[in-house]
C-alpha cells in the first residue's frame, strides 16, 4: 500500500482533490465522488476499480478533459487541463467506429484536426500503418466497420488511440463487451503496446481479475459518496496467473475492503455476488 517515491518529472497526470456531484431534482447537489487524488507516472498502468454508481466513468471523463470537476483540478505535466489534451487518448467501452470510413480512415480520424500536433501527409500515413500493424489488422485495412467482429472493432479503436502516440491512454471498460477469449487477447495486446511505447494507462473496470492481471497499481473506489478506499500494487511478473495464491489473497482483500465500506445501495449489492 506504500506509494513509490518518484520525482515530479516522471509524473504525467495528476488529479488533486476531485469532487464530482450533480444537481438533483429538488435543487440540492448530490455528491458521487469526494476528495479524490491520484498521480500517474510515465508508463504506469493504473486500474480504477469500483462498483457502478461510484462515478468511475465520470472521473475518467474529467481526467480526459471532457468534463469539469465541481472541485479540484487535473494537471498533465503539471499544467492545468481544462479541455481534452492532445497527448491523452480516450477509449470507450463501445469502439465508436464511424461506419462511413474504412478501417484505415477510422484509425486516421482526428489526426488532422486543427488542435492536434501538425503532421505532414506521409508522417500521418506512416503512423496509421504502424498502428494498424501493431493491432495486427494490416490485411483488413480497407474493411468497413460493418465487416468487422466486435474484437476486431475494438482493436481498431485501440489503433486509433495508438496512432496519436498518446502519453496517457484512458480506457473506460474497453473490453467488457467482448467474450472471454477475445478479452484476454486484447488485454495482452494492450500490455504489449503500452510497454513498447511507455504509455501510461488509466483503466476503469469493474472486473477485479482484469485489474489484478494488468495493473501496476489498483485503486479501489467505494462508499457513498464514493472515495478512494485503498490502493494495491501487484508485484507479480507478467503474465500473471489469476489463480496464484498472491492474486487470490489480493482479490480477497479487495472484496473485504469493499464490503467494509458497503452502503446499503441496491446497485452495489447486485455487484457483490461475484465473490
Amino acid at each position, binding site marked *: 500500500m506504500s506509494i513509490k517515491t518518484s520525482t515530479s518529472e516522471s509524473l504525467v497526470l495528476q488529479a488533486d482533490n476531485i469532487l464530482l456531484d450533480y444537481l438533483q431534482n429538488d435543487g440540492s447537489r448530490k455528491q458521487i465522488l469526494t476528495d479524490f487524488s491520484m498521480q500517474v507516472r510515465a508508463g504506469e498502468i493504473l486500474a480504477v476499480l469500483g462498483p457502478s454508481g461510484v462515478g468511475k466513468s465520470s472521473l475518467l471523463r474529467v481526467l*480526459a478533459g*471532457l468534463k469539469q470537476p465541481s472541485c479540484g483540478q487535473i494537471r498533465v505535466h503539471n499544467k492545468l487541463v481544462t*479541455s*481534452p489534451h492532445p497527448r491523452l487518448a*480516450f477509449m*470507450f467501452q463501445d469502439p465508436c467506429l464511424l461506419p*462511413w470510413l474504412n478501417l484505415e480512415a477510422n484509425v486516421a480520424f*482526428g489526426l488532422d484536426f486543427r488542435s492536434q500536433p501538425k503532421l505532414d501527409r506521409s508522417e500521418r500515413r506512416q503512423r496509421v500503418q504502424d498502428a494498424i500493424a501493431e493491432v495486427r489488422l494490416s490485411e483488413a485495412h480497407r474493411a468497413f466497420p460493418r465487416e468487422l467482429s466486435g474484437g476486431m472493432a475494438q482493436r481498431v479503436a485501440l489503433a486509433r488511440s495508438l496512432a496519436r502516440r498518446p502519453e496517457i491512454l484512458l480506457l473506460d471498460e474497453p473490453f467488457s463487451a467482448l467474450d472471454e477469449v477475445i478479452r484476454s487477447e486484447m488485454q495482452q495486446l494492450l500490455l504489449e503496446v503500452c510497454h513498447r511505447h511507455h504509455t501510461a494507462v488509466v483503466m476503469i473496470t469493474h472486473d477485479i481479475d482484469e485489474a489484478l492481471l494488468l495493473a501496476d497499481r489498483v485503486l479501489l473506489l467505494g462508499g457513498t459518496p464514493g472515495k478512494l478506499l485503498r490502493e494495491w500494487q501487484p508485484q507479480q511478473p507478467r503474465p500473471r496467473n489469476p489463480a496464484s495464491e498472491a492474486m487470490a489473497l489480493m482479490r480477497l482483500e479487495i472484496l473485504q475492503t469493499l464490503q467494509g465500506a458497503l452502503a446499503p445501495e441496491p446497485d452495489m449489492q447486485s455487484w457483490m455476488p461475484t465473490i
Partner: protein
Amino acid sequence: MSKLATGTVWLSRHAYQLGLTLAGLLVLVVLWQLGIWQLQQKLPLARLLAPVPALETLIELVTSGEILGDVAASLRRVLVSLSLALLAGIPVGLAVGFWRRFDSATSGAFQFLRMISPLSWMPIAIMIFGIGDQPVYFLLCMGAVWPIILNTAAGVRNLDPGWLMLAQSMSASRLEMLLRVVLPGILGSILTGTRLAIGMIWVLLVPCEMLGVTSGLGYFILDTRDRLAYSELMAVIVLIGILGYLLDSLARSLQRRWA
C-alpha cells in the same frame, strides 16, 4: 452447380416480379381504353385521348425533339428548387435537431406551414417575384423544404452520442465536428428527405408551370388544350409519369448506395 441454382432462383423471382408489374400496367392501359370508349359515346373527340394515339404521339414528340426543350426546362426547375430547398432545409434541420429550444419554438409553426398547400401562396408569390421562373422556384421550395428539415432533424437526433464524444475527445472544432461527424452521420437521413422532396416537387411542378411561364411540361399541357392537340395532352401525362418514376428511382438508388 449451387451457384447456377441460386442464379436461376434469382432470375425466376425477378422475372415473376417483372411479370406482375407488367400485368398491373396492362390492366391500367385496359381501364384507360375502356374509359375512353365510355367517354366517346358522348364526346367523339375523346378517341384522341386513347392509349394508342397517345403512345404514337409520345414517340413522335420524343423522336422529333419537340418536347425535349420542355422536359429540360422542367428538370432544370426541379434541380434549382431542390438545391434551394436543401440549402435552406439542412441548416434549419440541424438547428432543430441540435437545439431543443429552437425545436420547441418552431415545431408548431412548421407543422402549421407544412399543412398549407404551397399552391395557396401562388398569388402572393407572383406579387413578390413577378412573372417567370422565380415564383415557380419559390412555390416548389415551399413544398420541398419540410421533408428535408424534418429528416435532417431526425438524423441529428439519431446520431450516435459516442461519435460526438469521440470527436470531442480529440478536441474537434465546431466546424470539424460538423463536417467530419455530423454531416456524414446524417447523410442517409438527408437523402431520405431529398427523395420525399423530389416527389413533392414533381407533383407541384405541373400546376406551378401553368402560371406565367412559357416552357415546361405544365405549360405544354395548357398549350395542348389551346391547340386542341388532345393526343399530345395524354402523351405528356404519360411522360410526366415516366419521368417522375425515373427521378424517384434515381433518388432511391442514391439512398440505397449510402445505406
